């Protein structure tokens, strides 16, 4: 099979990536600006003999994919801000019960109904802390359609590898604009499939007993191993327990399995970063403006580079520290009131040289917006 060149919007790039990764169950609910994902999958999934369902609400679609994941399927749902809020309880359930699933959040302006048809990156912290209780989470993002495709494949791979929900934090601009996408050939991107137990019938299977490498083999509902899944703290059989030792160990486990794998999870790109005096840290559609600006200024001899983050959670503090060690100033370019800025400040300690180049009015931040701030920082005035 040869590569296929497509001209698609970002939501379709996400769908193509999901299908490449092997998605075979989707449940969703209509919401702008992610609806196209559901629309396309309502056609593609039955075409390949798989299931799509439009549920009665956002909560139900999150619950339905968890149910389908337990029968051995690769599952996804897609939403935007208000729907993402509604999904949080069930998302926490998937963290606790360690159920692989992928949740796409095509961000729009919030809070509340906000600005449904306009861009924002205001859900970064919600992705990290939206559901209650201490937990870790994986959240990925992308700034172009080729990367949306690959990031979506990675999301499914991480979900299966770490038995956890993975959030794809895209945004309205990137998902509604159209550009070229080259569909990779089969096997060009490795696919991680469900890791199932090899234990035979009548051998005691412990669904929540991690192996030495930390992974937990699963068994599909309907197969020979009958076990319990619960959102309560539970022992290695999945039985509820409030034994303090079990509670503490489980909480450590669901956090450590992700935080300790930050090097495998972290994805980023460098643009003109070598010897850069001024570093722009950005992600998603904001990164396009940052890269554009850096490219223009670099061509004029200035030393401006971009560190484009493709994984936001767990946040790569050490990476940011390393890349920004020699920068005169760091500008965080994002469309919110400083959600990643706070992490960058945390990473760099001395916050004197960290600035926020943001835009929160529903319009895409432009290279000119960023340039204006940079000139002020450089002492050149606007």
């Amino acid at each position, binding site marked *: 099979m040869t590569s296929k060149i497509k001209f698609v919007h970002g939501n379709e790039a996400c769908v193509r990536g999901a299908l490449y990764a092997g998605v075979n169950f989707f449940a969703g609910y209509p919401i702008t600006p992610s609806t196209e994902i559901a629309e396309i999958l309502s056609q593609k999934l039955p075409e390949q003999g798989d299931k799509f369902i439009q549920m009665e609400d956002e909560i139900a*679609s999150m619950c339905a994919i968890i149910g389908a994941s337990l029968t051995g399927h690769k599952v996804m749902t897609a939403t935007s801000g208000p729907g993402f809020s509604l999904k949080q309880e069930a998302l926490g359930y998937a963290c606790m019960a360690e159920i692989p699933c992928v949740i796409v959040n095509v961000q729009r302006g919030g809070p509340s109904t906000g600005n449904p048809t306009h861009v924002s990156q205001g859900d970064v912290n919600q992705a990290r802390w939206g559901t209650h209780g201490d937990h870790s989470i994986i959240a990925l993002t992308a700034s172009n359609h080729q990367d949306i495709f690959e990031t979506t494949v990675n999301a499914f791979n991480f979900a299966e590898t770490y038995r956890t929900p993975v959030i794809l934090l895209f945004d309205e601009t990137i998902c509604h604009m159209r550009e070229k996408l080259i569909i990779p050939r089969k096997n060009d991107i490795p696919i991680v499939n469900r890791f199932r137990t090899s234990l035979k019938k009548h051998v005691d299977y412990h669904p929540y007993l991690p192996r030495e490498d930390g992974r937990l083999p699963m068994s599909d509902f309907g197969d020979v191993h*009958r076990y319990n899944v619960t959102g309560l703290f539970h022992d290695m059989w999945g039985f509820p327990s409030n034994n303090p030792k079990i509670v503490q160990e489980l909480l450590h486990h669901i956090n450590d399995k992700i935080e300790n794998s930050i090097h495998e999870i972290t994805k980023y790109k460098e643009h003109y970063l070598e010897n850069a005096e001024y570093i722009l840290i950005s992600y998603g559609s904001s990164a396009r403006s940052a890269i554009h600006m850096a490219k223009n200024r670099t061509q004029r001899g200035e030393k401006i580079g971009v560190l484009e983050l493709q994984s936001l959670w767990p946040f790569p503090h050490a990476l940011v520290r390393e890349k920004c060690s020699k920068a005169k100033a760091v500008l965080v370019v994002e469309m919110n009131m400083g959600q990643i800025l706070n992490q960058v400040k945390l990473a760099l300690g001395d916050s004197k040289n960290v600035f926020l180049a943001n835009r929160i009015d529903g319009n895409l931040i432009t290279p000119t917006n960023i340039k204006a701030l940079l000139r002020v920082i450089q002492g050149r005035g606007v």
Partner: protein
Amino acid sequence: MSVKDYIRERFFPHIWCPGCGHGIVLNSFLRAVEQLKINKNKIVITSGIGCSARISGYVDFHSLHTIHGRALAFATGLKLSKPKLKIIVPMGDGDALAIGGNHFIHAARRNIDVTAIIMNNRIYGMTGGQYSPLSGLNIKASTAPFLTIENDFNIVELAKAAGASFVARTTTYHVLEAVTLLKKAIKHKGFSVIEILSQCPTYFGRKNKKGDACSMLELYKKNTGKIGSKKLNNNPDLIKRGIFVNNNKPEYCEEYEKIIQKAATAAAIRQI
């Protein structure tokens, strides 16, 4: 086979109060499964939160104990993704019809092949006796010290109107009837609802001076009547027991297979 073959003894003793009706429901349910001779690997029991929801852990099937009110949404994902599974959803009245009301009517509307067992004790027991949408008028509860002013749902009428293709009601007093109805509900192809009135002597009974568990069971005997019985004909105001709906409407997962056929045909035509 004995009931012991269907339970996870490791999980016992159960959490229910002395005199609670839920143990009777569990027993009736296991007898129904035993008599139907269903392979244990084919059954998934999925529940939400509450006293009744704890049934899922006690039984030796695939068990999914989820979040409050959403069990039917999880069940829909389980069933649609693997239609050969038998999905049983035990719920309390609050779990099914307050927080879970939306999922209940939509599961009924889709007529997806799932069995909903609603254990109606008219109270939130696990949290200490707050009134539920099934408490009805003039009931004392820990959140209704001046008695309730809210009307209750009629589960049977609600399920009928929403499109469930099997609807039945019984009580924990009528255990043999419960086994028979549960068997029919589980065997039924489509969304089946069985309401089982189940006593909560600890919270509902005590606060409303209904006496102990035995008195509450006696009350079920007295104030209910089987559909078609002389007792009910003579006193139509009694709570009706029996089967209210039993029809063969198209089932959701079977209908979905037709979508797959259509999609495959359309895709084949596009290839040409």
